[in-house]
């Protein structure tokens, strides 16, 4: 029997695979395809204090080996999320991680405080890196001091582990990671999307209505693996690695680079069964390579 379980701070996951925020909504749709209890955890769509409509359409575009999105944090607001979306996830025996977004530090703190009233939140993922929101978000994701400030402020009010999600659109991701670690983050998730653009040759305008969008999918995997490898060697807290994971081998690459767990985004759109198939792929790799515990793989590429 292979031990697939991993720990993210005080969270115990039965396996290292979770859907990435924004790619799984609140889980209902994928529950039509498989039993969500198979997952290591579930990460839900970004939640803000007030409801948000997000950006105009088109919101997605295909790119070579990847896609752009500019959903723009569409969500019904934290009240509705707590009342209508989270309770149905209780029936699955897995930790629920809520992705929190905002424009000001006060926003983040207010959403977190409100979430603390719910029984259905096992961890907070702080989205300081969404490239699709004009004001807010992005500066927290590119300035270590601001990232530390928002982390600290959330830590003060959170009773559950706080995971900070890093943006790859920075010169020095290691100093971002160190700053949020020093500010008390329990874990880091990385990477959010790279800022990109496609131009529609017919309309002679950016294809995505928002202009820029976030690039995800296999195209970004080498950047994500590199950043995971660099950050893992510089910090002590666990990393949830993501960016272009399509199969078990991709997931193993992130673990070897230093991630303790992985998240799967774009692959869900290509294959609704991506998450369970990736869990199977990891198990198979461990079996075939004599790995007794998946956590032994973390960081072997540099250890």
């Amino acid at each position, binding site marked *: 029997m292979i031990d697939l379980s991993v720990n993210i701070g005080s969270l115990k996951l039965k396996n290292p695979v979770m859907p990435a925020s924004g*790619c799984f909504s609140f889980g209902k749709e*994928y529950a039509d395809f498989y039993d969500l209890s198979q997952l290591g955890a579930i990460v839900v769509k970004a939640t803000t204090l007030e409801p948000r409509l997000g950006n105009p*359409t088109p*919101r997605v575009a*295909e790119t070579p*080996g990847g896609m752009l999105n500019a959903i723009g944090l569409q969500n019904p607001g934290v009240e509705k999320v707590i009342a209508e979306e989270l309770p149905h996830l209780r029936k699955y025996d897995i930790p629920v991680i809520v992705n929190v977004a905002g424009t000001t530090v006060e926003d983040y703190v207010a959403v977190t405080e409100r979430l603390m009233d719910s029984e259905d939140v096992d961890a907070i993922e702080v989205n300081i890196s969404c490239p699709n929101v004009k004001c807010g978000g992005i500066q927290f994701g590119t300035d270590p001091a601001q990232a530390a400030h928002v982390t600290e402020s959330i830590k003060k009010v959170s009773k559950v582990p706080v995971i900070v999600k890093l943006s790859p659109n920075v010169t020095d991701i290691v100093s971002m990671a160190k700053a949020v670690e020093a500010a008390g983050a329990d874990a880091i998730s990385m990477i959010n999307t790279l800022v990109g653009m496609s131009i529609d040759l017919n309309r002679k305008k950016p294809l995505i209505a928002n202009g820029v969008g976030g690039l995800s999918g296999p195209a970004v995997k080498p950047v994500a693996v590199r950043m995971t490898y660099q950050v893992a060697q510089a910090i002590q807290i666990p990393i949830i690695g993501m960016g272009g994971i399509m199969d078990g081998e991709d997931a193993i690459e992130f673990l070897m680079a230093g991630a303790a767990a992985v998240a799967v985004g*774009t692959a869900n*759109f290509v*294959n*609704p069964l991506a998450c369970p198939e990736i869990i199977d792929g990891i198990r198979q790799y461990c079996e075939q390579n004599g790995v007794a515990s998946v956590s032994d793989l973390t960081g072997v590429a540099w250890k």
Partner: protein
Amino acid sequence: MARLTILEHREIADNMRWLLFEAPKDLQYQPGQFLHIRVTDGVDHLLRRPISLCKVDGGRKALGVAYRVGGKGTKLLAGKNVGDTLDVLGPLGKGFKLHEGDRHAILVGGGIGVPPMVELADQLHRNGVKVTAIVGFQSKSVAILIDDLKQYGDVLVSTNDGSLGRQGFVTDYMTDELLASADRFYACGPTPMLRAVQAKMEGRVAGYLSLEERMGCGIGACMACVTSCRLADGSIGYKKVCKDGPVFPAPEVYFA
């Protein structure tokens, strides 16, 4: 989700193709639903292409679609051969609703909005509803599925350049007389056409519009495909074309 085998694949007009799949087991479907098709197993084209169900052949247990070869993905699709299998999700979404008691329905299709009208016409026809199909194309060279529709009722054709049928728009056929005789309308096509149809029908004939939007997941999880709708409380909000649609009651659709 299933790998479906291609039974037929041929050109039916300039850059327009007919593709018949072996039907998945226990097929459940409504006219107006769509298939979400992967065009390659590689990663160079990650997103699936949404294509409407055009015809279900119960006898042969087969599922047909008609599509335009336009961008890179549909070009790849066009290269697939009979016997090849494709990764297909669906049928997905909410299709056209048939109403008991209807006696006459107007079906309006523009360009690649025509395909879903075929299965709809068949079902209405089988239910004893009189079908009047109004279809519009750029020109004769890209006109499709007219003979298929004629099996189920009258077909009125218009083209932008007059090369087939009447020159003009589908709405030109919508006389007071025709509208007065109809219980329901169903439309699918480009946005300007849908907007004109919505305006023409408002307060006169109840019906449905089928919308298009760029999609990510196709199942309601990514929020890519939203469209503005009049919500129950009268406010304007987003609904998802992939899950809440692609077919919406006409008055719900809000064209900005």
